[in-house]
């Protein structure tokens, strides 16, 4: 449960090992290989992929399409098992790529889905979600169905839904990929702010290098399929960060170079 009192701002800097990984909410992925077999042959999604997220760290994973990023998140969430290597993670909740809100529920009931999934009554779930809706600027829309919400609002409801699962690790699968450029930038600033107030261990998969640098403490660059980590960039910058900050731009260029994009 995300307790209401959990508003502490951790002053952890990247790389600092203050908690045992996997216990207080860390993630360790070690030389993981994952191959999918189908009638048409084998697809090697991951080969020797490693990743480490300390508790309350935001780790962004960038890579070309089809490099096994989503597979990586499913491994962390325990939805798949690796063929070899090891995945150790504190309990993780997924935020899927598209918002996938239930069209018959209002924003409050959609955000409360994780609570309802655990058997919390509708009334209780609504009560617990209410203060969060207010914090996320959604309190006027508690009964509004997704079809009447803007893209940014739907993404906020979707994030809240994953947050309400009360897991120490959040696995975000390209959370803002479906948004227009302006809304996306707004939402990135919003997410950075929320994570400052509600620190969680976050593994953020994205193909937007700028988003990775703006949000993450560490950026992992993946190779094309079969995916593995080819570069790791520490982002030791204060927050809030702007995409136009010189340091952000420099790191973005480094990440792009690691991806093999020359400009």
């Amino acid at each position, binding site marked *: 449960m995300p307790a209401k009192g959990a508003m502490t701002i951790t002053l952890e800097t990247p790389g600092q090992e203050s908690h045992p990984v996997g216990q207080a909410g860390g993630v360790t992925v070690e030389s993981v290989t994952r191959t999918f077999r189908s009638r048409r042959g084998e697809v090697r999604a991951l080969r020797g992929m490693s990743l480490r997220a300390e508790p309350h760290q935001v780790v962004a994973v960038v890579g070309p399409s089809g490099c096994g990023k989503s597979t990586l998140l499913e491994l962390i969430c325990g939805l798949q098992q690796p063929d070899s290597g090891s995945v150790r993670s504190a309990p993780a*909740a997924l935020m*899927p*790529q598209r918002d996938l809100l*239930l069209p018959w529920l209002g924003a409050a009931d959609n955000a409360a889905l994780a609570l*309802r999934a655990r058997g919390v009554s509708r009334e209780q779930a609504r009560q617990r979600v209410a203060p969060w809706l207010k914090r996320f600027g959604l309190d006027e829309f508690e009964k509004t*169905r997704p079809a009447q919400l*803007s893209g940014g609002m739907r993404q906020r409801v979707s994030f809240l839904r994953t947050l309400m*699962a009360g897991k120490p690790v959040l696995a975000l699968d390209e959370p803002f990929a479906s948004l227009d450029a302006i809304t996306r930038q707004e939402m990135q600033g919003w997410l950075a702010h929320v994570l400052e107030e509600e620190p969680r261990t976050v593994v953020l998969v994205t193909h937007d290098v700028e988003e990775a640098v703006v949000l993450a403490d560490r950026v992992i660059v993946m190779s094309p399929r079969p995916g593995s980590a080819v570069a790791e960039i520490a982002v030791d910058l204060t927050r809030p960060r702007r995409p136009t900050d010189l340091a952000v731009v420099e790191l973005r260029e480094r990440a792009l170079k690691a991806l093999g994009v020359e400009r």
Partner: protein
Amino acid sequence: MRLLRRYLPPLLLLAALIGAWELYVDLGGVDSLILPSPHQVASALYDQRSLLWSSFLITGREVVLGILVAAVAGLVLAVAIHFSQAFRRAAYPLVIASQAVPVVLIAPVLAFWLGFGIAPKLIVVALVSFFSIVVTTLAGLESVDPDLLKLMRTFDAPRRRTFWHVELPAALPGVFTGAKIAVAVSVIGAVFAEWNGSNSGLGYLIVVSLPQLQPAVSMAAVVIMSVFAIVLFGLLALAERRILPWAHESRGARPT
């Protein structure tokens, strides 16, 4: 004006068809004892209005209740098929085979078996209606995004809660779609069910009025059934909008 533009084409087509029919019979194209003319049907509708109305109440009740039985049975069956691969393999062929059983054959058997009450009619109506409901409900159950099911797993949702909160609501529009498809055939089913083993209803009225050389009365019963099918379809669409308003929401007009 808008009302006129909307209703003029169907009314014109209807008027043209009825006019052609009237002319054809009046000019002696067919004996009016075989095919009564529209004005004969219209006067039968008026002269026999109390008999037609009481017959309609009986048949209408059979159809509505029969579709309800079919909706419940179809939903239950679709859920069972969705949940169990073994049950799908065992039951789906039988479900399909059941649609090939001629109603004219099964109706008298049921009448002999269960008597002249409403039960055999409900069974026949449900039998001809449940198939489309099973198919469309199953499609609804299978339309749930696999990523949503993964999400529920990371929320530690037990299977039954994923069904209750995610899959079942997603399947409900399919029940309505299936019922709408079944409307016309369910009316025919009710008539066949009354054909054998009944002493009331529009189907019974058709059977007894033909040998009495009153084809206009049986044709009037047909008119009532056709109108009833249209009304029932509309009522189902209306009910769906009231009960599942989200099912037809477009993703337009939202705040930013």
